């Protein structure tokens, strides 16, 4: 028994854990049983715990534990199948068996003297099965399609009958998952569905889906109305249908999937008859992968580990884990290399041009130029491929926010519904990481300041539950994220008074401001309207931090509010920061890059086109007033009112949404893909500069921070965003 001695400690600690889990399940079942209905999942978990204990004990030759858990297992199976009613007496016996397990374990640890007599407990367990047989399942399942019933396991069928017996409605939730993210997707959906009812089974869908996607039908029993469930879970390819039981429903499950239905019942895995497995395998291997992935619980892992399960399942395990986790810094290094390759390629191009100038006839040169062209094409594929690798769906951060909403909502005593759309919108992983904090802050603001307490909402004729919408979508080459609540909105008068009170602006200054200008105060550092900080927010570090963080991602944030009806924040972000297309411009002898995604257009004007409004230079562009900003003056590189060529002034119109500013530069030097490099801690906060980049010929140039420049222009002149009050005094810094 040297084998025994060596590994018995391992067994003891593992068995101890399982028994403790079993005991916790029982305790919870006990408290539920006292108040009425118990959670079938708990019974299931208890069943699985005992099942793994059995396997574990058999492996280590703990015969008494094996036979006790074997007996217990059948009892728990009857319980979860409803063949046996869960009563206090049953629970008493179950708790007695927990104590017996503990004694057996202690005995096993002492060397197994076999002093413990398990017969009395076994007898009590056996008595349970004799006496309290519950009524057999006789619920009418007529109306449910045979194609469903045919693939259900005994347990699933029992749960289905239970749901029907309790008068619950049945729903078929159809969802489509990305093969690579299916485990996350299913868990998320399962989590949501559990709020509404019970997930009875997963069925692979017959609908032809793309190679890399898997469609599932999920059978759900719930007391809720169809609309409620739809509102809660329907998004991004998830659809919900109610199954009318009076008439036949359309076929949903293609083939009897012994493999698939088996997953809900690990007990059957080991000894499952091979019937049907051949056909199932022929149908679609990925679907088997799904089921394993979705139900890959500790129990199953334990079973595999102890050889209780035939390793045929491992085939499907392999099929879903064809992903690699990569550190972002490694991708950054690759991206940098690609960027540097781009520089090399540009330099090669220059050399080739020079060669052509001296000897344009050489065949070799023509060959080289051809190869160069091929290389630059491949290089751009490589670059695009690397960018694609960095892209992740925004759903990652949205899921986190959903949990925050639930938690904060409960803490604030407010009932809040979060509706998410566009979770599949993809954005650079780095941006997603940087986005969670600002979004979290905005959500906190919605809950703390926005959504009114329940009574107040009812008084105003609003639905009792507050609503927060989180939307994402792609607009051009930028991603827009909207956070909207249906709360009390922001009262601009309130903001104005607070601004005056805190000395941010004077009463005279605020008198002529537009509402949107007043609203901009919320983005000022340290600005708060609250006199007392709450647990959630109101400490005066809020929207300014949000704005700074988003600005750092070359994004912009806008606010739109209607008192009494809600507030909407709109964040506009670039899809990636790793590599961008830039417009190269010259100003006062220096070269700068402007991210092309914030350039609306470039025009050429003459000095005579520039007019002055209230001391601010503007031009008229298609009937609209466009404020001008001299890059050279902003950066102090040239004196006022000095143009290198008064007849040829280039204006790069930058901005986002309604904010537009014309940036005056000396020369437009073309477009280029550039890799952005950070400037480091010391220079990070230079206003208007977002970073640096390498152009060809070893030139390092600065990349402009368009969001900051637009802000600066708006702060300096009131003829900016809306053009509504050109006569308003300057309130800027």
């Amino acid at each position, binding site marked *: 028994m040297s084998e025994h001695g060596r590994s018995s400690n391992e067994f003891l600690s593992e068995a101890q854990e399982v028994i403790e889990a079993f005991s916790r399940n029982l305790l919870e079942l006990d408290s539920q049983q006292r108040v009425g209905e118990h959670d079938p999942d708990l019974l299931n978990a208890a069943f699985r715990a005992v099942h793994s204990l059995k396997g574990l004990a058999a492996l280590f030759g703990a015969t008494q534990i094996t036979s006790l858990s074997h007996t217990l297992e059948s009892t728990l199976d009857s319980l979860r199948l409803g063949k046996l009613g869960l009563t206090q007496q049953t629970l008493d016996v179950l708790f007695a068996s927990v104590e017996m397990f503990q004694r057996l374990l202690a005995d096993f640890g002492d060397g197994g003297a076999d002093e413990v007599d398990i017969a009395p407990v076994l007898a009590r367990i056996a008595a349970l099965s004799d006496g309290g047989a519950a009524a057999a399942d006789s619920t009418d399942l007529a109306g449910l399609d045979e194609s469903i019933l045919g693939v259900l396991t005994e347990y699933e069928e029992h749960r289905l009958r239970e749901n029907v017996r309790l008068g619950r409605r049945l729903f078929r939730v159809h969802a489509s998952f990305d093969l690579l993210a299916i485990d996350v997707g299913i868990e998320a959906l399962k989590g949501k569905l559990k709020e509404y009812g019970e997930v009875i089974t997963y069925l692979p869908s017959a609908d032809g889906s793309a190679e890399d996607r898997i469609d599932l039908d999920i059978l759900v029993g719930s007391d809720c109305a169809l609309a409620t469930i739809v509102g809660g879970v329907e998004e991004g390819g998830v659809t919900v249908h109610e199954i009318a039981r009076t008439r036949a429903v359309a076929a949903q499950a293609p083939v009897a999937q012994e493999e698939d239905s088996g997953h809900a019942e690990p007990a059957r895995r080991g000894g499952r008859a091979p019937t049907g497995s051949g056909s199932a395998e022929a149908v679609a291997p990925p679907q088997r992968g799904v089921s394993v992935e979705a139900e890959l619980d500790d129990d199953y892992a334990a079973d595999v580990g102890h050889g209780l399960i035939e390793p045929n399942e491992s085939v499907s395990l392999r099929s879903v884990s064809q992903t690699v986790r990569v550190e972002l810094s490694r991708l950054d290094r690759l991206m*940098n290399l690609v960027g*540097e390759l781009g520089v090399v390629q540009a330099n090669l191009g220059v050399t080739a041009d020079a060669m052509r100038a001296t000897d344009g006839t050489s065949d070799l040169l023509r060959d080289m130029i051809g190869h160069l062209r091929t290389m630059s094409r491949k290089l751009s594929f490589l670059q695009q491929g690397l960018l694609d690798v960095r892209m992740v769906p925004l759903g990652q951060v949205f899921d986190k926010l959903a949990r925050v909403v639930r938690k904060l909502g409960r803490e604030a005593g407010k009932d809040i519904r979060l509706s998410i759309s566009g979770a599949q919108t993809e954005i650079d992983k780095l941006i997603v990481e940087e986005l969670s904090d600002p979004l979290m802050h905005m959500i906190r603001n919605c809950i703390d300041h926005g959504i009114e307490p329940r009574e107040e909402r009812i008084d105003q004729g609003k639905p009792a539950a507050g609503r927060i919408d989180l939307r994402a979508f792609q607009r051009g080459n930028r991603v827009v994220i909207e956070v909207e609540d249906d709360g009390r909105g922001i009262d601009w008068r309130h903001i104005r008074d607070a601004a005056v009170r805190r000395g941010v602006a004077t009463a005279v200054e605020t008198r002529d401001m537009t509402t949107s200008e007043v609203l*901009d105060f919320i*983005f*000022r550092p340290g600005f708060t309207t609250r006199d007392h900080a709450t647990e959630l927010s109101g400490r005066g570090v809020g929207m300014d931090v949000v704005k700074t963080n988003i600005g750092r991602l070359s994004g912009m944030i806008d606010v739109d509010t209607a008192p009494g009806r809600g507030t909407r924040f709109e964040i506009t972000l670039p899809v990636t920061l790793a590599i961008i297309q830039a417009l190269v411009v010259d100003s006062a002898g*220096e070269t700068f890059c402007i991210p092309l995604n914030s350039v609306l257009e470039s025009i050429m004007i003459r000095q005579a086109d520039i007019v002055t409004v209230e001391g601010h230079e503007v031009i008229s562009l298609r009937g609209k007033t466009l404020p001008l900003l001299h890059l050279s003056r*902003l*950066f*102090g*590189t040239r004196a006022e009112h000095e143009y290198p060529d008064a007849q040829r002034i280039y204006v790069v119109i930058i901005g986002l949404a309604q904010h537009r500013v014309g940036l005056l530069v000396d020369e437009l030097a073309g477009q280029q893909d550039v890799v952005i*490099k*950070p*400037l*480091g*801690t*010391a*220079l990070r*906060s*230079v*206003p*208007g*500069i977002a*970073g*640096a980049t*390498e152009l060809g010929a*070893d*030139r*390092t*140039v*600065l990349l402009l921070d368009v969001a*900051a420049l637009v*802000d*600066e222009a708006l*702060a300096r002149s009131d003829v900016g965003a809306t053009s509504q009050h050109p006569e308003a005094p300057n309130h800027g*810094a």
Partner: protein
Amino acid sequence: MAREAPDLWHAAPRGGEGFATEEDYEHGYKREVRHDLQQYIAFRVGSERYGVSIGDVSEISMVLGITPVPRTADFVQGIANIRGVVIPVVELSTRLLLTREQQPPRPRLLIVRHEEELYGLLVDEVYAVVTIAPEALEDAPAALTGARGDYIRALARDEGEILIILDLTTVLDARDFVVAGARGIGR
């Protein structure tokens, strides 16, 4: 620069290891080999000799392609690209309130590591590696107070000459890099 050669020789066993001197050869290693000696890179800015700990210096490079950055303090010469990494370049004579030498014959970029980031220090000439015993270090005299005094960590006596040991924490204080007024312009 007669002492340049022995000093460079001393530089070979890096990391404060003890080493033998000519004295040791003469007296037959009677002296205890010291382990507390520290090495500094000595360089010239204007007419003064400065030093930074050799552990802080990552490399010494020629001065090439510095891109000016607007809205930064006057001592910020700009940014340089050192093998793909963009680093700020500090014009040390301005930072240390010295008169700037026009066209020094051998300017160098001393690349130092400070708080996990690289910075370039523009100096007029790099001399050598010098080894200094702790007892040869003294605090900056009180008379040297004011802005300049803040940048001095200690004074070292090196064979009769004074070496001013720089305090990189104050010289490279990130708060000084961006012009105070410019910071407030953006909202």
